[in-house]
């Protein structure tokens, strides 16, 4: 769960920075949000599938590793 927290903690400020960059270029907030998330709304089926697979891997990796840590505890 720690890794999940770190991922969110990194992702959120970076999204804010890229929105801030758009605002510095002269767009208003609405437009910059639209710009930022448009690529995720308009997707080819192949792109969408890859995106979902990557997300599933991401979620899976948090839990899988946790279990592995529990198993190897005794060996260490």
């Amino acid at each position: 769960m720690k890794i999940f927290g770190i991922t969110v903690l990194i992702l959120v400020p970076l999204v804010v920075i890229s929105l801030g960059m758009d605002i510095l270029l002269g767009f208003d907030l609405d437009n910059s949000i639209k710009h930022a998330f448009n690529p995720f709304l308009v997707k080819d089926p192949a792109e969408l599938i890859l995106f979902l697979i990557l997300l599933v891997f991401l979620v899976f990796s948090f839990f899988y590793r946790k279990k592995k840590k529990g198993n190897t505890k005794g060996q260490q």
Partner: protein
Amino acid sequence: MEKAKISGYQLFVLIFLFEMGSALLVPLAGEAKQAAWLVILIAMIGGFLLFFIYYGLFQYYPDQLLTEFVKQILGNFLGRIVAFLYILYFIYLAARVLRDFGDTLLTFAYPHVPLFFANAVFILVVVYTVRKGIEVLARTGELFFVLENLLLMTFMLLIVASGMIHLNNLKPIFEISGTELMKMGFTKSVFFPFGEVIVFLMIFPYLNEPQRLKKIGIGSLATSGIFLAIIMAVNIAVLGVDLTTRSQYPLLTLIQSIEVAGILERLDVYFLFLLMIGGFIKISVFTYVAVTGTANVFNVKQPSRLAYPVGIVILLISIIMASSYTEHIHEGLGAVPRYIHLPFQVIIPLLLLIIAFFKNRKKGRQASK
């Protein structure tokens, strides 16, 4: 910090390929027209000055990463915040470079492939490398260094053999005044690509011969700067100022125009190889540094666990950061050097160096008493 060591040669190779990475892609210092190569050389000297700041910091804390000694210099709370900001900076730069390469691939080779797809494939390879650690990355760099130099040498030979170099295109060199050139060199061009060498503050502690670091750093910066200057000069000598500054990828235009004996032509794949080698090393170094930094700041025992999540964050940010390539480049030339590169490459390290100097002088006095 993982238990690994890299040799001086490997560090040299990493810095060289890192510098060549995306700087080959864009018309570097294009606004200086015929004197672009001179501006690159001036920026290289600026790069040396920045390197000395980083080297000074490294000398105070030779076996600590940037994220570690920041905590020592600024205290635990403020230090953690600055270290976290540096992690964000590295991830943001990784995302920028990834976007650069993704967009280049699409415009040049794969027009029907979605950007997300190209970027995802690239970042997956990078994540795999980063999971393996710095030693593997350095050895990969060693292999690629030979290939990159072979490509550059044959490329130069082909250009000379095809007789396309017109030195008159490089004149008049001093159309722009000396002070203007200096200003250009020490503002935009010094941040990209030379100032980005600050990421190596996270890699210097792995060096097995720290006493040679100064020579290695200056040597690799000088080599890459001279190479970049030569390539920009050849670009202008062959294509002329107008085409070079208008072209999105001048090196690609240059390589496409090679024609030797009616057989050797359309050598676009050269460009792709040069591009991919540099880009791969650059993104890998940024990602590796971000992963070790995050593990360090948040006390994660196994940094490799973070490689995939950080990779996905880089991928998402590379898509979110701009809606088009034009916007991306516009941001990269306008806001990024001023609001992002300047504080992270110059202001914060300089402040850190000054504080470290006073702190260590105090310590030195106490020790001598």
